[in-house]
Every structure is written in C-alpha cells, then in structure tokens.
C-alpha cells in the first residue's frame, strides 16, 4: 500500500499541507475530490518529487522513500505525447528509456492498442488524431510504465462527455486487468463515484480530509443507478454547505 504520513509543505506563509496523512490500498482506486486550490496538485508534486516536502513520510509497499519518482506512473489532463513520435512510438517511450527489449515492448504495445481501440492508428502522429485517442495513447504509455502505482491528475477533464465516459471504463481496466493501485484527482463527483473504491473529500487551507466515503458497489457502475445519484447529490450538498470545502 501507499502510505503518506504527516506530510507538510508550505510556500513562504502559505501552509498547503500540514500533517496530511493518507493510505492508498494495493490494487485499490482512491479518488481525491476537493475545491480548486486546496492543495491536491501540490500533494502530487510532493509525491512525485517535483516539490520537496518539508516533513513527513512516504512509503510504498512498506519501503520509505523521499518521493515516488521512478516508483509511480503518471497521467494528467494534458496527454503529454511527443508531437514528433507516432502513437506507438510514444507508447514505447517508457520501454525505450528503461532499455527493455524493443520487440517484447512492441508486442505489448500492439496488444494494448488493440485492447484500447487504437488498432490501425499506430503510425499516426498525435496531431492527426482526436483528443480522446491521444488520451488513450497516454493511457497505453501509463500502462507501459510498468509501475504498479499510478497517479492520475484529472486525466479526463479536457475531454468531451462521450469520450470521457468511454475512457472512464478504460481507467477501470488499469485496476481490474493490469492490477494497478490508483490515486486520482478529479473535480467531477460523478466520475469519482463511477471509478472509486474510496472517495476522499478534501478541505483547504491547509488541505485536510473532510470525509472518507467507501463505495463497495461492483464495477462497472451506472451513472443512472439511483443509489449513485443519491450519493452524488449528498456529496454535492455537503460540498456546497461546508464553507471550508468551497
């Protein structure tokens, strides 16, 4: 499991994280939801080593480490595909950097392209395909990282509703088929309810945990499920009522 204990980070007078603790179970899907500017991205920056933490511990599978760089795959809103590489070459980047056997990696990438509906587009440049396809390719690359832990920073927020829905089911594949442990940031309560095992509602200044909601239902879930709709309304109400939350 990923364990974050007493993590603190301040920028001059602004305390963003103050003794923040969180556990992400192995092969679990944990989603963080909270207002803009509450510190979610700072948490990811600290976890990935972009920002240095002031204090606190980060451990993965019981092993303490300063940050999760080289331990976690990362996917965000921007697909970050290299415009000069074809889709398949983009997906092969992690293997190329790790120096793994190209033929093996290509075989794996081809299978993933087929699985994620990108077959036939392997040699296309990112500029020649839709945003949804680019994000699928980013998802293939994330899987090709071959890291068990995956950090998702609003990975679908730039997409239209239909593409988003189809990619949400692909995100679930990361957990069910590729046995990844996922920690995701999102602003979309419905999206969170569709994919999360545990939903964590955050407060700001400094960032804290307002509420943890376990969602035991089996996946895939339906957005029209009355239980989920009710839960979504309750969460939205709570988010609106609590001045610390928004």
């Amino acid at each position, binding site marked *: 499991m990923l364990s974050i204990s007493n993590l603190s980070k301040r920028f001059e007078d602004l305390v963003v994280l103050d003794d923040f603790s969180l556990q992400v179970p192995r092969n679990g899907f944990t989603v963080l939801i909270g207002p803009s500017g509450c510190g979610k991205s700072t948490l990811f920056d600290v976890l990935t080593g972009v920002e240095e933490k002031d204090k606190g511990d980060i451990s993965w599978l019981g092993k303490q480490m300063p940050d999760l760089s080289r331990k976690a795959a990362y996917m965000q809103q921007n697909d970050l595909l*290299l415009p*000069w590489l074809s889709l398949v070459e983009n997906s092969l980047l992690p293997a190329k950097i790790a120096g793994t056997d190209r033929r093996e990696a290509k075989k794996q990438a081809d299978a993933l392209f087929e699985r994620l509906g990108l077959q036939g587009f392997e040699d296309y440049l990112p500029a020649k395909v839709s945003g949804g396809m680019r994000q699928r390719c980013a998802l293939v690359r994330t899987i090709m990282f071959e890291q068990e832990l995956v950090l998702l920073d609003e990975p679908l927020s730039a997409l239209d509703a239909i593409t988003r829905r189809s990619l949400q089911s692909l995100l679930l594949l990361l957990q069910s088929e590729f046995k990844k442990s996922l920690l995701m940031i999102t602003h979309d309560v419905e999206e969170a309810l569709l994919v999360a095992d545990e939903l964590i509602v955050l407060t700001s200044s400094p960032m804290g945990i307002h509420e943890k909601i376990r969602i035991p239902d089996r996946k895939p879930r339906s957005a029209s499920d009355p239980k989920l709709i009710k839960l979504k309304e309750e969460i939205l109400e709570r988010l609106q009522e609590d001045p610390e939350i928004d």
Partner: protein
Amino acid sequence: MIRPGYISLFVVIILLAAWDILCRVFHIPDFILPAPSEIFKVALFQAPLLLPHALVTGLEIILGIAISLAIALPLSTLMFAHSSIEKALSPFLVASQAVPVFALAPLLVVWLGYGIASKVIMAAVIIFFPITVNLLEGFKDCGSEYRFLFKLMGANFWKRLRLLHWPWALPYFFAGLRVGVSVATIGAVIGEWVGAQKGLGYLMIQANARLKVDLVFAAILWLSLMGLGMWRMVGFLEKRVIHWK
C-alpha cells in the same frame, strides 16, 4: 488569393524596371550605376569568370557553417547541462557579438594568412552565435510537464537530451541556422576584402578598382543568389526533418 511569392516577384520587377528606366533616361554612366539589364548581362555572360570565385566563397561559407556547428552543438549542450557554465560563458558570447567582424578580419588575416582559413573562421564567427543561442533557448523551452514525465520514467540526462530536448529544440536550431546562413556571406566577403587571392569579395575589390561597377553588382547578385539558395536549402531540410509541423 495571390501567393506571397508572386507579390515579391512583382515588387522586384517594378523596382528593377524603375531603376533601368532611370539609368536610361538620365544617361547614368555604367561606372557610376549600371542598369539592371546590364548587370544581368554581366552576371550571365561573365559566369566563367564569376563561377570559380563563387565556388571559393561558397566553400568558405560551407566550411564556416560546419565549424560553427561543430562548436555550437556541444557548447549549447554543455551550457544546457550546466547552468553554471552557461552563466560563466554568456558574457563572452555576447561580447563576441559586440566586436564588429570588420575589426576581427585584419587580425585573422595576419594570423591565418591570405588563404581560405581566415575567411572560413570569419564566416564561422558570424554563424556560430545565432545557432548556439537559439539551440540553447530551444533546449530550455521544453515544457516542465514533459521534463517531469521523463523524470518519472527514469530518463538520465542523455536520454532526455536525445529523446526530448533535441527534437524539441529543432525548430529553434533551424531558425538559428537560417539566420546564420543568411549572414554567413558577410563574414566570408569581409574576410576576402581584407586580404584574399580568390572569392567574390576579392573580385568585387578588383572590379571596383577598375571602375567595373557592373561586375561589382554582378558579384553582389551572385552572392545574393547564393545566400537565397542556402536559405532555401535550410528551409527544405527543416521541412524534411521537422515533419510533424
């Protein structure tokens, strides 16, 4: 919609026609200002005289480009890899451009002689700066999110450079190279003016001394065409290399 190329051609034709008419109407002698038609005639019919000189100047420019690339590529990489080296060398780079090439030319001729070497170095000095500065800028321009992604993938500096920063900087590199080749003729010609045995600059000095102004203009025309040709060649190469744009 009229293509920009046609507009440029039209403007050039109008200007040349006006120049030609003025020369004929006011009977301006050829040794003061020859008409464009005369210049074209000389440029064409004196080609056997101009060509060997143009080849020498062209060779000086090409070698100048090769030398400037051989220095600019590793230097900009080194400056990118170590910001302390960048900080230490930047003032010297800027200072090297503050010194007029006219001031360097006599010294280079004294040190390297009247042969091709001094002109090659002159051309290299001029080309080197835009390539180095542009390439460094291109390396640094790469988005922080991409750098971060490569860091997460565990890429070391050389892998980042090869797979991310170098392709990212290619448009900058070609912009610098375009500027470089278009001004490279200046370096070579100035070197030839100061002291040479061949080259279009040398031919211009010789023709000027004999009041063969039409030949001077013909040499300028050849130089312009060479500069334009190299500019085009770099543009062609750029399109082939940066295929994703």
